[in-house]
């Protein structure tokens, strides 16, 4: 009896294992980049992009689809329910848009603007139709401008700097600390080639938009030499924050969101103001070159620059909004500190992510792959 049952039981179990293995295969692709909003991805169902008028579709990052993030548009157009599709990272969103996902609006981050423009995926923004455009400082407006034409509406922004454990490390004043052997085994940096070039460029005085092959080689060597000091390259903020929490990480390249959450958790952390300047990223919205809803899309983006939506972004998600008029709504001291809202000159001392070409991105990522592959 036992012998007769053994065969079928084995076959069944093998099938179960194979089925579980198959399931595993479909779930083993963690996003290489976390979502901008809250450091985690959600499996929101993708829906077909709207094509007719009266509907509006947005290729967005998870957590930005909630009505709190488009309050003014929702009030002005209760008859329109925006349809949100999602991407997990800038490369993911760009690849989807390039493959023809076709949403009316797409949300990307510096330095991707130029790629969308070069591929003819987005069209110029008629800023005369944006009632809130005058509130956007030139610093942010310029980030959306190529050869005098505005191609996007800037919306969210944040810092990149050195986050460190003040119990373990004395005050950090330069990006040089990221390469300091004194912190070997307790350093983490972001798993991103173009970001790595920006930091090294600031440190070495090189222009990331115009690097010679020798300079890129020098940057590669800098990161290869740094490798033994790095415990892990982070791809999502929760992993980095866990490293600070268990004290395996003392110093890291980090966004201000991680700083804010660790401050709230009561950890002894500080966010450096390096002599070379902090780095900064900007989130931008483009409008599809083929949209049939251009005016509606403009209204949506105008609403994104509205006071209620801007305040919600600041307070709910702890990210910067491009309209400084709304900063006063932030009363949380930790958030004021994390975004340096009490320092009116900090943005002047910040290196905003430069616009690079696709070729440069490919070169920088290839350099980063060499760093990862080196032993």
């Amino acid at each position, binding site marked *: 009896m036992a012998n007769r049952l053994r065969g079928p039981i084995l076959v069944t*179990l093998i099938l179960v294992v194979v089925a579980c293995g198959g399931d595993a295969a479909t779930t083993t692709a963690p996003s290489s980049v976390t979502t901008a909003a809250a450091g985690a991805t959600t499996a929101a169902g993708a829906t077909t992009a709207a094509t007719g008028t009266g509907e509006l579709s947005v290729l967005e990052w998870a957590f930005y689809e909630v009505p709190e993030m488009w309050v003014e548009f929702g009030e002005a157009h209760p008859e329109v329910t925006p349809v949100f599709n999602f991407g997990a990272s800038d490369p993911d969103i760009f690849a989807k848009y390039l493959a023809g996902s076709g949403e009316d609006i797409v949300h990307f981050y510096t330095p991707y603007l130029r790629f969308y423009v070069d*591929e003819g995926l987005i069209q110029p923004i008629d800023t005369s139709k944006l009632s809130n455009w005058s509130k956007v400082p030139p610093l942010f407006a310029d980030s959306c401008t190529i050869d005098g034409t505005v191609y996007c509406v800037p919306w969210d922004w944040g810092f990149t700097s050195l986050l460190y454990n003040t119990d373990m490390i004395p005050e950090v004043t330069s990006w040089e600390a990221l390469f300091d052997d004194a912190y070997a085994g307790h350093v983490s940096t972001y798993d991103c080639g173009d970001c790595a070039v920006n930091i090294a460029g600031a440190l070495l005085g090189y222009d990331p938009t115009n690097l010679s092959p020798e300079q890129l080689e020098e940057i590669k060597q800098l990161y290869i030499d740094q490798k033994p000091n790095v415990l*892990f390259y982070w791809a999502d903020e929760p992993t980095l924050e866990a490293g600070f929490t268990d004290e395996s990480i003392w110093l890291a390249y980090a966004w201000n969101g991680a700083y804010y959450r660790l401050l709230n958790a009561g950890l002894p952390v500080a966010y450096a103001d390096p002599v070379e300047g902090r780095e900064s990223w900007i989130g931008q919205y483009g409008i599809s070159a083929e949209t049939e809803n251009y005016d509606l899309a403009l209204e949506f983006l105008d609403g994104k620059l509205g006071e209620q939506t801007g305040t919600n972004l600041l307070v709910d998600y702890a990210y910067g909004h491009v309209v400084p008029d709304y900063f006063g709504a932030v009363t949380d001291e930790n958030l004021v500190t994390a975004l340096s809202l009490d320092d009116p000159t900090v943005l002047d001392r910040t290196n905003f992510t430069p616009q690079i070409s696709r070729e440069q991105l490919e070169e920088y990522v290839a350099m980063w792959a060499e760093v990862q592959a080196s032993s």
Partner: protein
Amino acid sequence: MRAAADLRRGPARWALVLPLVIFLGVFFLVPVALMGVFSFRPSLRGGVANWDWDPVLDHYRTIAASESFLPLLGKSVLIALLVGVVATTLAYPVAYFLAFRAGRKAGLLLTILIIPFWVSYLLRIISWKVLLGPTGAINSFLAWLGLIDQPVTILLYSRTAVVITLVYVWLPFVALPIYATMLRIDRRLLEAASNLGAPPATAFRRVTLPLSLPGVAAAFLMVFIPTVGEYVAPLLVGGSQGALYGNIIEIFFGDGINWPLGSALAMVMAVGILALLFVLTRTRPVRRLLDDL
């Protein structure tokens, strides 16, 4: 009887295999062929569906010129060999016990062996971080015993951690084919060996082991081939030093938006593994084993 005979020949036979052939064709052969074609594409400019380009060998030249890509492929092959050998060695006694000693409890024990696999692969790897981390269970236990005063870092964020994790992940996959082969061994052969005076160790060495080797070979290949291209475990537990070749491919398909170079890297790996397997299967012992499968 007639129906069974009909299934063995004529259109009915093709009707049975056709769904699988179509499935593999659409979801395996076409993507692999596309990847091969993409590896000669100059760049991804003009969109994924753009076919207006002349084939180039630039990406293969880039790989050949790189100081680290091919050496990393070599290291990945060695790590896959190590994982395959360790997993097979650890699984063999388990399979042996289940097949020859567990008796009626074999089914139950087999179920227990694979219970962890009812949990997603990703979750299991993440749970390893909880176990192996600086404040994880193992380090906490060692510190509590007073054996260490600083956390042992090699347990996480190292190639060792990648090997440990992959061996754990593959263990039941390795045990099952060996177990299945052992079940097929005719018990009368062992009785005959015993009757002819062979002590148990000799019977094992001369009868059980040779007859189970085809299962061992199959199990090893099941682990070795996917491990060469593995990228999830290195990503999660490998740290800065733990990258495998699959991670480099992923970089170009992901951050780099450079599918052509990623495709060329993938083709180099696929052709490399195929060449290695071709050479292996031409060696006499392996060929004999495979013939016995």
